[in-house]
């Protein structure tokens, strides 16, 4: 029975149910999203307000007079009961107010808006590299299962799972920057272009290409390629492994036998039939690896002095700038959750089997 027929028969019996079901699903979904984000806020609230013995001490230091302590306590709303503090905190966070950074004296939100595009650019290029190489490698490993190729892909993946990213970053910097001089370092753009080039979106590579500034684009490329390749390697390890497993699953199905019996070429079977079906769960995997790269960028950015959110968080950490740390954590956490939910939604849209239910 096709879905339309099923839907029609359902409409016939219970017209109200047809209207309600998607709406109910939507409400449920919204409730899940809301509780997850609220939980995220609760965790950062707990870290920022409950664990430190006295947040006022963290702001003023222990030499401040008692009157000043009292005033700050009131300004921060710390004399209120805990639940009121939390409500206040949620209201502030929802309006994008994470307080001011002690280190930069800017509003944390403004800082994050400034540095976040750098992280996005890095993670996106990393995911592109990881997907572009990881999927073909995984397919190859699945097709030539048990062969030397399979073993090599497996070892590449295993090392990717096991190597400390910051260490690999240091070594690659030593080799490709210091010894070979192939790439540029540090940061996103050379000093020569830093003040002449204005970026409108914050994504330097795209902006430079858009404006037709080829020299700038090349310089930006030389800066981004090494950290992006490293992140790409990490997502490659994950993506190739999952691709292999999905492909093995598909290649064992009966429709593959049918396609072979029809006399289709092996390449067509693998790339058009099997991979197409493996692609649905792969979308989820790629989305997850993108979310992981946002996190992986914390250590990578520190090594490459890449002025993104990760470096912002670690710099703030070193200066005990809790507002900035928690604001950054919240933004990464929210993006992480957002991507997870999005991949969930995408899976449902792409997989026709989930429609029938």
């Amino acid at each position, binding site marked *: 029975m096709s879905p339309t027929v099923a839907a029609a028969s359902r409409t016939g019996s219970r017209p109200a149910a047809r209207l309600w079901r998607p709406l109910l699903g939507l409400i449920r979904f919204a409730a899940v999203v809301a*509780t*997850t984000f609220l*939980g*995220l806020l*609760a*965790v*950062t609230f707990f*870290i*920022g307000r409950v*664990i*430190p013995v006295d947040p006022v001490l963290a702001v003023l230091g222990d030499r401040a007079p008692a009157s000043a302590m009292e005033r700050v306590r009131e300004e921060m709303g710390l004399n209120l009961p805990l639940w009121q503090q939390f409500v206040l905190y949620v209201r502030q966070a929802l309006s994008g107010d994470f307080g001011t950074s002690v280190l930069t004296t800017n509003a944390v939100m403004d800082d994050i808006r400034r540095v976040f595009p750098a992280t996005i650019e890095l993670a996106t290029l990393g995911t592109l590299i990881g997907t572009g190489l990881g999927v073909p490698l995984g397919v190859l490993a699945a097709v030539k299962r048990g062969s030397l190729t399979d073993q090599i892909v497996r070892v590449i993946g*295993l*090392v990717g*799972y*096991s*190597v*400390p*990213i*910051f*260490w*690999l970053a*240091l*070594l690659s*910097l*030593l080799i490709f920057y*210091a010894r070979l001089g192939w790439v540029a370092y540090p940061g996103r753009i050379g000093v020569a272009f830093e003040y002449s080039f204005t970026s409108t979106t914050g994504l330097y590579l795209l902006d430079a290409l858009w404006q037709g500034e080829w020299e700038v684009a090349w310089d930006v490329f030389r800066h981004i390629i090494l950290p992006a390749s490293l992140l790409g390697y990490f997502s490659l390890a994950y993506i190739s492994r999952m691709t292999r*497993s999905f492909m*093995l*699953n598909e290649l064992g199905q009966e429709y593959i036998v049918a396609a072979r019996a029809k006399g289709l070429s092996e390449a067509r079977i693998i790339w058009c039939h099997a991979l197409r079906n493996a692609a649905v769960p792969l979308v989820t995997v790629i989305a997850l690896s993108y*979310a*992981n790269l*946002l*996190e*992986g960028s*914390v*250590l990578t950015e*520190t*090594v490459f002095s890449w002025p993104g959110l990760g470096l912002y*968080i*670690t710099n703030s*950490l*070193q200066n*005990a700038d*809790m507002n900035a*740390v*928690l604001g*950054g*954590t919240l933004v*990464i*956490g929210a993006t*992480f*959750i957002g991507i*997870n939910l999005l991949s969930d939604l995408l899976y449902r849209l792409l997989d026709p089997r989930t429609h029938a239910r």
Partner: protein
Amino acid sequence: MSEAGIGSGQGTRAWLLSEYPASRMQARLGRAYATWLRFAANRLAVVGLAILIALVLVATFAGVLAPHSPYAGDLAGARLLPPLSPGHLLGTDDQGRDILSRLIYGSRLTLAVVLMVAVLTAPVGLLVGTVAGYAGGIIDTALMRVTDIFLAFPKLVLALALVAALGPGIENAVIAIAITSWPPYARMARAETLAVRHADYIDAIRLMGASPLRIVLRHVMPMCLSSLIVRVTLDMAGIILIAAGLGFLGLGAQPPAPEWGAMIASGRRFILDQWWVATMPGMAILIVSLGFNLVGDGLRDALDPREAER
């Protein structure tokens, strides 16, 4: 047949692999032996096991194995010596300390972090997951929502924020990693519990009057153990990496403790000229976490033959 040949090696093997075990113990030993055979057939897994055994031995006998003190260096005569220098196989760091000795003592920290996290997280995840799965209803929903919230958090970033609030140090790093690591175990244990919850043997035990507590503890939890062990072993590699990352950022073990991640951080300043200071500890991290990954993969294949066919 089974009693006859216990003496010789061949007989023990036959006894273990017997299709008709005479006692419960023989059946259990036989099953363990069959699992071991599957595990041992995987060459990479055996390599991983050797790495882990070596790690435990090195950590235990660090005092005997280390040629020098991990803390006292020779600032005047042995600063930044390259590898293969006489008396310093892996060279020395900026304070004239022997890198090999520091690595050997550092294995204790790595092992301690891994064990502490495993001891703290696995039981919590198991308990939350089995209780949620067995109880169902509102308890299930509540517990799983909490689990999902923690699961939705990026691990390293949450650990960073926690350590920032708690203050740097290896104990706080362990606490932070533990808080971020338990949710996958809870999810997994719940899935396993749901699979066995309506099994006949559970109904039979319930009819015999067993309390829910007893059912969960004695009859549901053991069913989750094998996949839990696999998952924990595989996660150990990630935990070592996060601990090293925290150490690298100066939030884990504090100097002069020979923590591998912190050693990389201190070697970072000399990376251009004295590459070995940062390279050696990274190799150690890579080898150990590779060991955990290999053993985890091998265990999964050995404990779950269905998956191994893939």
